[in-house]
């Protein structure tokens, strides 16, 4: 009888201890998971912030990129000036540039003078310059940042080749981290 009682008390203690240990283990596991999810959230946030920062800095100097910049084609060198004729040539060669700037979209849109009727018409060799949008890169739905730029091109007016500059915006898209 005594032996049995002792055995039962021992069993009880072991049970208590194992429950306690399991509880302690689960508690720490839970705390660990909460900390981990918080840290992962921070990593995602900082990755998205870095991408956003990159896109903002990139869009502000995208017009100065040799692939788009006006140079001296339209008079003296200008900042934030995009050569639309060159952009059309770039559109034909864009395959190699798909990963070049590490962005998910790149669009150039004419905003003034407004198109009549007021709708977006993608530029092609056939309709250029009677169009208002050049989509160079379009990979995924994404966040985007824009910058106002001058859009310049060569045009024939009264049998003379003249420079035409209009107001536009360049939009750079980047993917958020999910």
């Amino acid at each position: 009888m005594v032996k049995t009682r002792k055995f039962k008390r021992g069993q009880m203690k072991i049970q208590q201890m194992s429950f306690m240990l399991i509880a302690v283990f689960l508690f720490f596991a839970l705390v660990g998971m909460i900390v981990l999810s918080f840290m992962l959230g921070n990593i995602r946030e900082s990755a998205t912030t870095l991408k956003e920062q990159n896109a903002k800095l990139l869009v502000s100097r995208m017009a100065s990129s040799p692939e788009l910049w006006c140079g001296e084609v339209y008079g003296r060198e200008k900042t934030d000036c995009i050569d639309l004729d060159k952009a059309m040539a770039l559109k034909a060669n864009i395959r190699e540039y798909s990963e070049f700037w590490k962005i998910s979209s790149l669009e150039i849109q004419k905003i003034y003078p407004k198109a009549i009727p007021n709708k977006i018409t993608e530029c092609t060799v056939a309709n250029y310059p009677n169009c208002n949008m050049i989509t160079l890169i379009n990979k995924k739905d994404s966040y985007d940042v824009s910058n106002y730029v001058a859009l310049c091109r060569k045009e024939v007016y009264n049998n003379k080749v003249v420079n035409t500059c209009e107001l536009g915006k360049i939009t750079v898209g980047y993917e958020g981290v999910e």
Partner: protein
Amino acid sequence: MRDKKGGIQFSFAWIFAIIAGVVILGLAIYFVTQFSEKSKLEINVKNAVSIGVLTNPVESSFESAKRYTITTKAETRIYTECNSQETVTSSFGKQIIRTAEKTYNQWSEDQMTDMEFQNKYIFSKDRVEGKIFYVFSKPFKMPFKIADLIYLTSARDLYCFVNPPDDIEDEIEDLIGNEETRSESQNFYLTNRKRECPQESTSICFKRTDSGCDVYVSDNYVQKSSGRMYYEGDALMYAAIFSDKEEYECQVKRLMNRAKKLFEIYQDKSEFVFKKTRCNSGTDIELMQMISLLGGYQSSQDLEIINVLAQDIQDKQDNQYRNTEECRLW
């Protein structure tokens, strides 16, 4: 705990608690170590991406020879590597940046990750170390702008320019800044003689008469212990000064690939504008010659001939449109 004979006796409960405790502690230590490794990796990746992002404003069409400072929280090593390998989809190669931080007197070099950029050309020693880094850039033109070259140095690496030509001297003076803007940890020096250079600085001499210099700059090449690097223009001269031969050759190869692509774009633009406006750039044959020449680029020794043709094209365009920009391509 002691039995009748004086020996130590453990009950099952104690043994169980000790084993379970060891397992829990072991797991805790394992996860903490893993977590710390992951944190180091995260910091290294973040630093490498940040360097890539922070060099963005340095590149622009007008601003050059302006120095930016990158300061890191801890001691950092920045590794820059160049890969000029062409892929099926791209011929631009890659600029690779890796960073490692010093934590508890140990470099976290095992936790480095390659950050790749196709649109960057960074010239520096293969490893720069410190807390303060200086960055400046110059546009590389041949004859139009091909790219902005970025030069990265650590405040710890001292460079002494001995008797440079006037234009280089002015540029270095601008980079050093005046007394108000000068940084405390200055790493560029201008002297007239090699012996006036600070100790442990890399001496860059522009005249063969100065002996014992680390770097010699001639009219079209830079001579270093790692070899002879040919250059055209100041942008590539600085590139050769600040980088090793292997990296320099790789980056110039990447630049030539980008130049080739840009010439192809200008060729297409020329055709496109001609169809639209009958405006003839008059440089179609030279553009084709240049594309073919760039396609056969082997090493920096080829730069001279490429530059001659680039200059010819530029002269032809300038002569044709001396007082007007009517049909200029760039």
